[in-house]
């Protein structure tokens, strides 16, 4: 399917979901749906670096929080409409993503993952000590009651997040099918061999960290308006980092469908568990699902589906060969 057509289909699906939530009339659906959509954006963004390039980013929460805090800072300077704030959040996080890429260019595998974790703590310390955005006390953002013509303001936020999700998925799909995506895949499979064959791996990695970081920042930008009161420990929460890793891994990391499935499933499950059981238990569910899935179903739900219909997993030729070596079967 052509990209513009795909984008159109996504928009129609998004509009349908919005209309359905509107028809249900209960604003709770918008509040819950916003969180799920936010995770769709976060996990899609994580997957661009983690799934396509094979670089694990534990610092998703930092990029998310950067987006949120750039909104807080802008809010104090000059009130701007949210779409502009989203763009600003994206630019700030994208620049930090680029910086992280430069700083960690030489790091592979585990070292990169640990460096991202370190980055998150360093940024959190800066925000805690930055009195302008509230420091450790936090900052209030007063959300307008209603907006014309949608009614309750949350519907507006939901709409923005829906558009972001559609945009993120389209970008991910576009990357997957372009030269860029093939370049990313070569980095994931064998970086040394890719570099030896003339793939500009450093440049590609910088592109990946920038896009991924920018998308996470965009997801975070409307967050202060959603939550109303932002403090460092909530914006930098470990649950964002865990969720944005768990969702793609549970869904499947090789295509844009995986993070979408993972985020919708796990996000809705968490919303239901938060309401019916407790919020600590819902985090426990995520932890167990993550560990269970990486052990039992390493290719996620997509992998399970492909196995079920006896098809070759998309873009998994290399891994299949390794499996065949272990089991002694010829693929």
């Amino acid at each position, binding site marked *: 399917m052509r990209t513009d057509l795909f984008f159109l289909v996504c928009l129609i699906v998004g509009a349908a979901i919005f209309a359905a939530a509107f028809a249900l009339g209960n604003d709770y659906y918008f509040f819950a749906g916003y969180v799920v959509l936010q995770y769709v954006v976060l996990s899609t963004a994580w997957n661009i670096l983690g799934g396509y390039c094979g670089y694990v980013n*534990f610092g998703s929460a930092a990029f998310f929080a950067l987006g949120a805090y750039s909104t807080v800072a802008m809010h104090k300077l000059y009130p701007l409409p949210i779409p502009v704030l989203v763009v600003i959040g994206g630019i700030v996080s994208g620049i930090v993503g680029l910086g992280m890429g430069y700083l960690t260019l030489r790091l592979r595998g585990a070292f990169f993952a*640990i460096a991202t974790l*370190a980055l998150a703590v360093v940024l959190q310390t800066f925000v805690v000590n930055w009195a302008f955005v509230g420091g450790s006390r936090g900052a209030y953002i007063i959300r307008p009651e209603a907006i014309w013509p949608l009614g309750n303001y949350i519907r507006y936020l939901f709409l923005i997040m829906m558009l972001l999700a559609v945009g993120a998925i389209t970008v991910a799909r576009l990357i997957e099918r372009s030269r860029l995506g093939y370049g990313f895949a070569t980095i994931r499979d064998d970086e040394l061999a890719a570099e030896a064959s003339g793939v500009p791996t450093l440049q590609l990695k910088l592109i990946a960290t920038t896009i991924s970081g920018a998308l996470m920042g965009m997801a975070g930008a409307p967050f202060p308006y959603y939550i109303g009161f932002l403090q460092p420990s909530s914006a930098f929460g470990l649950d964002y980092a865990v969720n944005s890793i768990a969702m793609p891994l549970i869904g499947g990391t090789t295509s844009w469908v995986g993070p979408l499935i993972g985020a919708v499933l796990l996000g809705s499950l968490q919303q239901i568990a938060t309401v019916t059981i407790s919020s600590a238990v819902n985090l426990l569910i995520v932890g167990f699902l*993550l*560990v269970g899935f*990486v052990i039992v179903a390493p290719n996620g739900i997509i992998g399970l589906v492909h196995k079920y219909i006896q098809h070759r997993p998309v873009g998994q030729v290399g891994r299949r060969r390794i499996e065949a070596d272990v089991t002694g079967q010829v693929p």
Partner: protein
Amino acid sequence: MIFSFDLLINAIVSGILIGAFYAAVTAGVSLSFGILDIVNIAHPAFIILGSYIAYIFNISLGLDPIIVSILATPAFYALGAGIYQIYYVSFEKRGQESLRGLAFFFGLLFITEVLLVLYFGVDYRYVEAPYIGLTWHVGFLDIPLRILVPCVVSLLLIAVLQLLLTRTFVGRAIMAVAQDQLALKLMAVDPIRIKRIAFGVSIATASLAGAFLIIIQPVEPSVGREYIGRVFAICVLGGMGSLPGTVLAAMLVGVVESLTSTFYGPSWAPAVSFGFLLLTLAVRPAGLLGR
């Protein structure tokens, strides 16, 4: 001026003492990450688990936390051996340790933390021991025993580990498995068994480190998180798996952190170790005493 000089010396001494404790915290990671290449980011969570075990027995039976933690090492060893077995079968054998192995340990970290929150809540817990309230005054130096005791036992622990690694057959096999797994196999030693033992020992040190932690400061489940960056910073700075290097790097980080919190305020201290880590990784990934 003389006052700030006192302050400086005091900050340096307490940094060195805390550094020895950091070395004990990092020793396990130096074994698992430095030697075995297993990125156990859940190690701090196991340390917190050790803290809570020391806490339970201290509160209910009045036992000394360090003695409890020594008695608990076999249980931690078994836990570590079990985790390695799962890790080996599910990831190392399939050749997927990089991405999914990391996610596995991240999940373990998260599960341990949430379970502790569910069971104990998020209140700070502390232990009672006869030496905790005391402070030695040597000239203008103040040495609180709650830091000195863990420091001395930490250094003992590191010395024992170093002897184990260099003087015993198993220890030498552990060093060998890091260099050449195949060669070890040809010598009729099962590398998987050796790695299992090494990982078990690495988790066993978490029991002791946990007791030290809860002696030094009150503990709540998410305290472990700020140790993730610290332990990996020290491990990388110390040259990945060299125990003397680990002690040196740990004391360096301890002193810099202590100076930062004395002269700039404690809220900046977490950034120091992570900043150290980022710098080390960017500038000299081989560490101080590279292997």
